[in-house]
């Protein structure tokens, strides 16, 4: 067995460790161990690569790893849990960039002709990797609020994007015909980078969970393509694992909104449509704003409470005070549970992570399908900064943009308390008739301040 064979075998071991790592993510009890297995797999793969007899020098590698580890480590330690979606997007962008760069380096370093299959996969790796890089950066800037979270659209946008994509593929074809065509090669890189930007700007903030998952999937595909080009099975296996995982999450997110992926990508959901004037079909009546003491009285008299968190809780950093209130009421004998919609927040599982950070036991967290039947027998539901995921219009109004989206049926509870920043409509710009119902109590203000006020009121 040659050294190369041995190294290939070690790559197989690391692939198995990655698989076992993900397998252990199926339960919160074993997940930490799973992540350690996955880290070990990565370490094994890196060491095996460094042991490759083709390696000539290590100085540049050591410097690069030191720089990368310092940046990645610093970001990972400093990031707030509420900012996790943008952090993951950014790391993912780095992965895409790495794949594209590896393919470019291979292109540069190769002397003599390429096998046609290698050339195709190299080009695909560059295109997908580059657009993952810029797409992720745009997702990051949107999630950070550096650029508007509203969809940015213009006339003929999709035609422009399609034209860029077709040009990119056409140029890829010319490079495939003649790998020496440097101008075409660099134009491909530029167009792919532009495509990532242009494809993500028309997508609204509330759809970011889908986009972050999809970009994650792309970076996996890019890695696989690199693997084909370098004839490295570890990259092929791992890339397809990541690609499948990203696609799976994307599908869950789309299903949870009852929308197709095409609708998410091209629908510019959440765009404020100026042409639509109030047609008078919105909910009638008025929202009833209550003061803290009224709401606290209702909370105190409840025997069962379900808390429904949304992006507003994350934006207000209200997860800790939410848990304090929940725990206090639980100690007073109230049955307290949390109901979490799959697309609440800005990334898959965003609310779960925040509540975990606040020390809420994970067996208190329930997914929609596990808790929806219980709302009708629940005394009080406390909605914290969630809007579209509790909008009954999704069930009752066929004209609503969110019609057909599975929602948490909070309106079936005896009383619904809604903590909301202001009277404004939610992200999707849709009125929520829940807020106008007779059994709904609105408490306006910053979620964190409202909960703190509630807390002191119930303690009195």
């Amino acid at each position, binding site marked *: 067995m040659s050294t190369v064979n041995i190294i290939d075998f070690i790559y197989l071991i690391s692939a198995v460790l*990655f698989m076992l*790592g*993900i397998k252990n993510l*199926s*339960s*919160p009890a074993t997940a*930490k161990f799973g992540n350690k297995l996955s880290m070990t797999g*990565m370490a094994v*793969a890196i060491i095996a*690569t460094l042991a*490759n007899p083709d*390696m*000539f*020098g290590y100085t*540049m*590698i050591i410097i*690069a*790893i030191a720089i*990368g580890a310092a940046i*990645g480590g610093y*970001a*990972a330690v400093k*990031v707030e*849990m509420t900012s*996790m979606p943008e952090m*993951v997007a950014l790391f993912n962008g*780095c*992965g895409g960039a*790495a794949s594209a*760069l*590896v393919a470019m*380096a*291979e292109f*540069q*370093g190769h002397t003599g002709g390429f096998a046609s299959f290698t050339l195709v996969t190299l080009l695909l790796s560059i295109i997908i990797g580059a657009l993952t890089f810029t797409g992720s950066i745009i997702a990051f800037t949107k999630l950070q609020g550096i650029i508007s979270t509203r969809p940015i659209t213009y006339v003929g946008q999709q035609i422009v994007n399609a034209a860029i994509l077709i040009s990119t593929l056409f140029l890829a074809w010319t490079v495939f015909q003649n790998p020496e065509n440097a101008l075409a090669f660099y134009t491909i890189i530029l167009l792919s980078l532009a495509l990532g930007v242009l494809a993500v700007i028309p997508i609204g903030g509330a759809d970011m969970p889908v986009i972050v*998952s999809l970009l994650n999937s792309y970076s*996996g595909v890019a*890695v696989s393509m690199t693997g*084909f080009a370098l*004839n490295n*099975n*570890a*990259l092929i*296996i791992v890339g*397809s*694992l990541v690609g499948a995982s990203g696609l799976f999450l994307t599908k*869950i997110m789309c299903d949870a909104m009852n929308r197709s992926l095409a609708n998410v990508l091209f629908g510019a959901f959440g765009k404020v449509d100026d042409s639509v004037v109030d047609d008078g079909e919105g909910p009638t009546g008025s929202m009833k704003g209550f003061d803290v003491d009224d709401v606290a009285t209702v909370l105190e008299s409840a025997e069962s409470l379900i808390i429904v968190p949304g992006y507003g809780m994350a934006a207000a950093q209200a997860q800790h005070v939410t848990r304090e209130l929940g725990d206090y009421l*639980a100690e*007073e004998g109230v049955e307290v549970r949390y109901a*979490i919609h799959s697309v609440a927040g800005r990334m*898959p*599982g*965003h609310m*779960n*992570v925040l509540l975990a950070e606040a*020390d809420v*036991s*994970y067996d208190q*967290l329930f*997914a929609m399908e596990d808790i929806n039947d219980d709302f009708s027998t629940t005394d009080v539901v406390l909605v914290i900064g969630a809007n579209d995921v509790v909008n009954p219009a999704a069930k009752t109004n066929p004209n609503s943009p969110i019609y057909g989206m599975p929602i948490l049926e909070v309106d079936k509870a005896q009383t619904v308390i809604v903590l909301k920043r202001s009277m404004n409509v939610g992200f999707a710009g849709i009125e929520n008739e829940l807020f106008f119902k007779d059994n709904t109590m609105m408490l306006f203000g910053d979620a964190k301040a409202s909960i703190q006020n509630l807390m002191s009121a119930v303690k009195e």
Partner: protein
Amino acid sequence: MDTGTIIIGLTIFVLACFAGAELISKVPQTLHTPLMSGSNAISGIAIVGALLATGRPESIDAESLIGFFAVIFATINVVGGYMVTDRMLQMFKKKKRKKKA
């Protein structure tokens, strides 16, 4: 690259896709964020290619320079990805709940 190698590669790709989908469908909603950041860290495996591109050339040339930046990006992805995943998973705990008798 001969056709046989390509077919083997494609076979691995397809089977790994199925294995991946099977494994991931078992992950509960609670852990979707760690799943995403964890699988994201794994995609930093591109570092393998980056290391080869940087270390193989005998002197500093275009390939090794591009490889150098690839190693930086991949390392950010790997180190950052695993560390945030670990930070999140540290927080997932099951607690004994106190209830007033």
